[in-house]
Structures are given as structure tokens and as C-alpha cells.
């Protein structure tokens, strides 16, 4: 049941993310990018979280309990840091562009078209 819920929510997040990323408004596009990244983080959780029921401490491993996969959490933390870095960089660019071009509409950013 949880797996179906996870699959559904990942799908919905992907849909929203792609839709937002294709918007003309650059701020919305940047937020769509962040949503897509959370969808992928959720995908990572979904593929690795259901192996065991206990936290992967050494004491739990020694007691013979089935622990969950610790690597997934390390991966997600790293992915969050990376996505946060690129998201803030995108927002910084949008901020400067909004001042330089007086718009955040991607249709008006056409100075490179000759």
C-alpha cells in the first residue's frame, strides 16, 4: 500500500515539476526544478526504505535485527545539498536578470537571438 502511495506521489510531483519547468515565468520554472528534485529524492527513499524496520546502528546490527539501508540516506542528503546549490544559483541568476532586463518572462530574454 505504501509503495503505491509513493509511486503515485512521485508521479504527481514529476508532473507538476515538468509543467512548472516549462512555464514562461522564470521563477516558476526554477521552482519546478526544485519540485523535480524532490520527486527524485522521494524516488530514492522509495527504492531503499522498506528493506528493514530498524535504524542502521551498530547495536541493532549486532542484535541481529534487520536494519534499513543507510546508504540511501547519505545519497539523499548529498542530492539535497547539490540541488539546493543549483536551485539557489538559478534563483540568483533570475534575480540579476529581473533587474537587468526588467522582466522574468523567458520570451523576452531573446538578446542572444540574432
Amino acid at each position, binding site marked *: 500500500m505504501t509503495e503505491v502511495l509513493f509511486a503515485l506521489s512521485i508521479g504527481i510531483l514529476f508532473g507538476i515539476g515538468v509543467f512548472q519547468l516549462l512555464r514562461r515565468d522564470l521563477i516558476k520554472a526554477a521552482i519546478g*526544478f526544485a519540485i523535480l528534485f524532490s520527486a527524485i529524492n522521494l524516488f530514492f527513499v522509495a527504492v531503499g526504505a522498506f528493506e528493514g524496520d530498524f535504524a542502521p546502528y551498530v547495536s541493532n546490527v549486532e542484535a541481529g535485527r534487520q536494519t534499513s539501508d543507510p546508504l540511501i540516506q547519505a545519497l539523499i542528503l548529498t542530492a539535497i545539498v547539490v540541488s539546493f546549490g*543549483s536551485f539557489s544559483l538559478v534563483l540568483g*541568476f*533570475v534575480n540579476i536578470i529581473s533587474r537587468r532586463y526588467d522582466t522574468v518572462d523567458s520570451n523576452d530574454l531573446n538578446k*542572444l537571438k540574432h
Partner: protein
Amino acid sequence: MEQNYVLLGTLVTPLVGAILALVSAHSNRLQRSIGVLAGLIAWVFCTALLAQVHSSGVQIYALGNWKPPYGIVLVADALGGLFAFMVTTIMIGGLLYTFHSHDKCMTYPAFVPLFLLMEVGLIGAMLTGDLFTLFVFMELMVLASVSLTAISDDHYGLEAALKYILISSMGTLFLLLGIGALYATFGTLNMAEIAVTLLTGERPLLAPASAIMLLCAFLLKSAVFPFHFWQPDFHTTAPTPISAMLSSIVVKVGVYGIFRLVTLLFIEEAPLLERWLSTLGIIGILFGSLGALRTYNAKRMLAYSTFAQIGFILVGIGWGQPLALIGAIVYAFNHAFIKSSLLMLMGVVASYTTTKTANFADISGIGSKLPPSLGWLVLIGGLSLAGIPPLNGFISKLTLIQGGVERQDWANLIIMVAAGILTVMYMVRAWQRIFQQNPLPGTVAAKDEGDSLFAPFLLICVCLLLGTVLAEPMIQLISETVRQLGDPQIYISAVNLPALEP
């Protein structure tokens, strides 16, 4: 398990250099010296590493001394070592160029640290044996190069940077999704361990899907059709040394990834992937060469030409047999030197104009006011790009075409030779417009002083050497590399051996 500290040194040197450069932000001159010094030390490390790889086999370094399947492991095999060597060599050229440049963006305190971080990302992506670390290093490289383009002197740099970061982030997302799918199926991120499972012929549901996702991400990083549209803008508007790096070595990260996909991970699917790669490569060759012919800006012309050159490499990978792979690697290696030197030379030409532009309308006929050696260097570089005999471009075209003749793929060979003629056309025409024509009436006068010719001169010298004296050792080195690529067991046993011990 033997830890190779030279391998660690190649990565740590530029990282420490970046930190030192950040700390010494008060003095721009000191920052640039630190940059050149870090680049040189990293080059020495990489050369030593390449020598070790060829004398005593694949070198590994397990980070934090965690045993390979559990921890992150750095692996330098012949391919990774060669590509890292290429990256560090060209990086020295780029860092030297910043030393004598008058661009305003190079006086910003963030410039040299970002440049060195880009080098960390590049070397790391080529020397890591762990898929997730590959993703992290590639993202480091992308973020550094995007920031460097955004602070470019070119007013449109920011627009190009935003365009690229949105597109590249999509590529990154699919890379991450592909890596996630691989982890879900195999329960490991170590490339060697995944390769072991894939070699047994087992094909879980998600494996082919992740192969396609990884391939698309690598094609996007290399700017191959249909993922190419950001490339000319991004490579044209970047500051000169950065655009030289982007167009020569950053696009090679994708090529490296594709090599890993078809020779280590998905060997069984390789024929299918290769058929796609040669089709995309041929489209790239046609589109890039024709695009370069009709463009209005010298740097943009070279950016379009990068499409065509990446296309040549992909066709070589697409043919797939050892001789063609040798051709592809030789092509990738030589193209990096030629393209970086040519872009720097165009940057020098542009630095003599008052607006620092490389538009043909502004630089036509400027040559009479430039140092005469500049014209000769551009001509040598252009002829090398087109593949005229005494230069290294000829060696790469020759080896690649040998591969094609062995494969008897005549249709593609004709297109490739025709594209070579187109290359001569656009390079010689650009050279004539800049150095042979009389200035157009109303053109702004050239400045007395521009960027130094030293770095591109050095790189052109390397091109000349690679075409003559060093040609034979280079071919031997690369033949050995391809021999190692032909047997994935070499890579796998080097990484996994410690894990097999009880």
C-alpha cells in the same frame, strides 16, 4: 589493499589551490599565481599517475580506507588516466591565459577559485569509480562553469548561463534518476560491481531504462544532437579561457561517460547504443559544419565546429571495433588541444577590439594591426582542425578513417571527408577575413594592447609536437588504452579484488 596517494593528489591539489586562492582574495596577482601553480602540480601528479597506470596496472584509492564495494573508490585505469592527463594539460593553458589577460571578470576574487573547482570536477568525474560521486563531480563542474559564464564580460553571458543551467539541470536530474534506478536494481553504486552483475547477462527491469537515462545525460553534457541547442550561446559568451576549456575538455566528460557505458557497463546493449551514436554523430557532423559556415562570429564558428568534432568522435565510438575506438580517443585527445588553442587565439583577436567582440563585422581586417605571429598561429590551428598533414588533426582523421575503412562504412566516410573540406572552407575563410582583408570603412580602430599570446602559442606547439615527434608514442599509448578497454575484467579485478578476500 594498496592505496595510491598520487591519485588522491591529482584531486586534492586543485581543491587546496581553490581554497588558498579564496583565502588570498585581497591580491589578484597572488590568486592567479596560485592558480597556475596548482594547475602545474596537478599536471605533474597526473603525468606520474599515467606513467604508473601504464607500468603497473590500474591504480585505486579507497577514500577513508573503506573497502571498495562499501566506500567510495577512486579508480585510474588507462582511459581515466589519459583523459585526466588531457584535462590537466589544457587547464595549465587556461590558467596561464588568465595570467596575462585584461578582462574585467578575471579580477573578480571568485574567478580563480571557480576555475580550479571546475578542474576538480573534471578530474574527479574521470577518476571516480562510483556512479554517485560521478554525479556530484559533474554537478560541481557544471555549477562552476555556469558561474564563470554568468560573470563574463560579455553582456549576454548571464542569459546563456541561465539557459544552460536550466537545461543541464534536466540532464542532471535524469542522471540522478538513472543512478537511482541502477541502485534500486543492483544495490550498489560501484561501477565495477554493477559491471560484474551485468556481465553475467542478468537484465533486471530497470537496467535498460537506466542505460538510456545515463546515455541521454552524457549526450546532453557533450552537446550532441538533439540536446545541442544551448551550446553555441554558452560557449561564445563565456570568458575566453573558460570558453576554451568548455569547448575542448568539458564536452569530453560526456564522451568519457559514453566510453564507460559501452565498454564497461552495458556491453551487451552496446551494438544498439552504438547504432544510435553513429546516427547522432553524423547529424552532428553535418549540422555543425554547415552551421559553422554561416555564422557571424568567430568564437561561435568554433563552437559550432565543436558539434562536428564531437560527431566525429561519436561515429568512431559507433563503429565500435578496437581500431575505430583508437581513432575516437585519438580524435578526442587531439581535438582538445586544437580547439582550446584556436578559441584562445580568437579571444586574443577579440581582446584587441574596443568592445571585445569576435563578430566578423568588427574584426574583419583587424589583422594588419595585430602582431604578425598571431595570423600564423591561427592559420596553423585552422589547418590542424581541418586535418592537413604535418599537424595533429591529420593524425586523428587518419586513424579514425582507418577504423571506418576496416568497418567498410562508406556512406559515413564520404560525409566525414566532405565535412573535413567544409572545415578547411570555414577556417580559411575566417582567417582571410581577419588577417588578409582591408578593414571595412567605419570599423573601430584596434587597441594597441591585447591579451598575451603565450598560452595559445604553447598549446599550438603541443599540437605541432603531437603531429610529428609525439605522434607515435601517443598512438601506442592509446592502443594500449583500447586494449585495456576491450577487457572489462582488468578494471573489475583491480577494484573488486580486496572484497573477494574473506
